[in-house]
């Protein structure tokens, strides 16, 4: 187990270094002078030259990368071109709405998707099953922002049940916090629910065809117990895997959902940086998000042994 964890950590370190290299190279591969891109369209030649000097762009690329990577490891993601503030500080400031949204979405989505997927598999071929599958295809097809504005239109503008947009910190009360987050979480969760429900159903159908499930039924175990105790536990590995892969979906969705619902999170930080062409912010957030994705998937790899005792890490 320890050996496995160590091996996985090493391969993750390699993946993160390559990811960092890609992010670093992006600005150098793009056509045009990096200093000119960073300085913006209105910069004078002298400003561009000064910037090139301060950023160390005259040095050879490998040296630049090592210097940059060293800074990143020390928590220095560079400074925003627009405000001059450190990028890491800007990200930390905006962490609460994003983390709240992501956790609430995952909670709602996983609970909903697994129950719906188990139900569909238990009643395979029935009307319930087919309805669930139709919703799963729809969940993949309807874009996050269209769902978001539709929900705003129905629940906030027409029915006036919920606030239209914005965020209140959890410190100011759980209820207003939840009221501001419930529509974003549903919006963001839809595609995630569709993905997990589909895989849950497929994994459950596989397990339900196993001999030991038939044995359990034959010896008189109640249907509910067969489903949850015998089948769902054994279907755990693919379900947990897809929850991890889906985090990528969630990360992309966070950026859009925060824009639709005007949540002042990390996603909005990036979107605001687009129009200002504040490249260090985009670079920093991309790196942080890919780190989150990699760590979540490492945790999921390590959780297999907890879910399924048959899994052993050699």
């Amino acid at each position: 187990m320890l050996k496995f964890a160590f091996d996985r950590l090493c391969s993750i370190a390699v993946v993160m270094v390559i990811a960092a290299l890609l992010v670093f190279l992006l600005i150098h591969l793009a056509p045009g002078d990096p200093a000119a891109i960073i300085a913006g369209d209105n910069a004078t030649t002298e400003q561009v030259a000064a910037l090139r000097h301060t950023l160390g762009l005259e040095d050879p690329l490998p040296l630049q990368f090592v210097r940059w990577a060293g800074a990143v490891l020390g928590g220095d993601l560079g400074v925003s071109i627009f405000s001059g503030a450190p990028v890491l500080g800007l990200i930390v400031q905006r962490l609460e709405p994003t983390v709240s949204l992501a956790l609430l979405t995952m909670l709602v989505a996983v609970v909903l998707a697994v129950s719906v997927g188990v139900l569909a598999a238990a009643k395979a071929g029935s009307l319930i099953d087919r309805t669930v599958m139709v919703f799963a295809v729809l969940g993949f097809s309807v874009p996050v922002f269209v769902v978001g504005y539709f929900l705003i239109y129905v629940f906030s503008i027409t029915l006036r049940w919920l606030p239209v947009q914005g965020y209140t910190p959890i410190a100011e009360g759980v209820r207003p916090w939840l009221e501001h987050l419930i529509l974003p979480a549903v919006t963001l969760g839809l595609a995630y629910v569709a993905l997990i429900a589909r895989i849950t159903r497929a994994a459950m159908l596989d397990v339900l065809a196993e001999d030991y499930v038939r044995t359990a039924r034959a010896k008189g175990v109640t249907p509910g117990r067969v489903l949850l105790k015998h089948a769902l536990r054994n279907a755990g590995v693919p379900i947990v895997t897809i929850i991890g892969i889906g985090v990528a979906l969630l990360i992309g969705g966070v950026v859009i959902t925060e824009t639709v619902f005007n949540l002042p999170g990390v996603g909005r930080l990036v979107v605001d940086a687009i129009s200002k062409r504040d490249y260090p912010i985009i670079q920093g957030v991309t790196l942080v998000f890919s780190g989150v994705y990699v760590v979540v998937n490492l945790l999921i790899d390590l959780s297999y042994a907890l879910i399924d005792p048959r899994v052993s890490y050699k």
Partner: protein
Amino acid sequence: MTAIATVPPDADRPPAAEVRRRPPLWRFVRRNPTLVLGLAILVAIAAAAVLAPLLPGDPFTMQPSRRLAPAGGAFLLGTDALGRDVFARTVHGARVSLTVGLSVAALSVLTGLAIGLTAGYVRGLDTTVMRLMDALMSLPAILLAIALVSLTKASVATVIVAITVPEIPRVVRLVRAVVLTVRDQPYVQAAIAGGARTPKVIVRHIMPSTLAPLVVQATYVCASAILIEAALSFLGAGSPPDIPSWGNMIASSRLHLARAPWTMFAPGLALALTVLAINLIGDGLRDRLDPRLARRM
């Protein structure tokens, strides 16, 4: 669906007379409802996209006196905040979406196929290439695309490249998985023993097995590319604002959601319908090409 593969009934018969009894088209529709429904919707949308300049309405003319006119009347789907015809803009928006979707699907499948075949077959390259792909996959597609677009001038071509790059690892993984299972099959070993050169082994004996799953994957890539393009345009990092695209339309209509919901729901519905149609085609193709998977999903 039966699990046992049966020999097609006309396999040992001369194929001439048998098929005539029912119109073959109808039989095809009955057997592949998902595929046909998806194709029907997509063909309608593609036709609208191709014929857009011939259809009534002009997407660019602004009529400030008739801004935010409701649907019906002179304008089929009303007008937007600048008094432009929402119907015409929605129809023209299909052009950007379909161009991006098809280009990304073609580009990422071709690149991914080449990389996947090499990585899967040439053992020495495998680990290196797959680590690179893992790294690429860990970068969120939308953020990578935002970064690429923010570094260059906004154009449809940039958007296509930006969306293609994060899609490639998914194709590579799929191709590599197929290659790894096929590589040790007796017929491939026989070809190698018979003296076929490596490029020929890969192209003639291994590549054909990847085609069926690739076709299915290509449809899903196409659907996801259309969604990402719309998302990028919505966020202001996609198609240039002067081109009518669904993402641009939704972005500019959000201020008027309460007064003029049609300005948002027309492009939103078109977008959802297009992606749905392509996903249905993907599901239908998967059912036809891979019955084992079809039972499970």
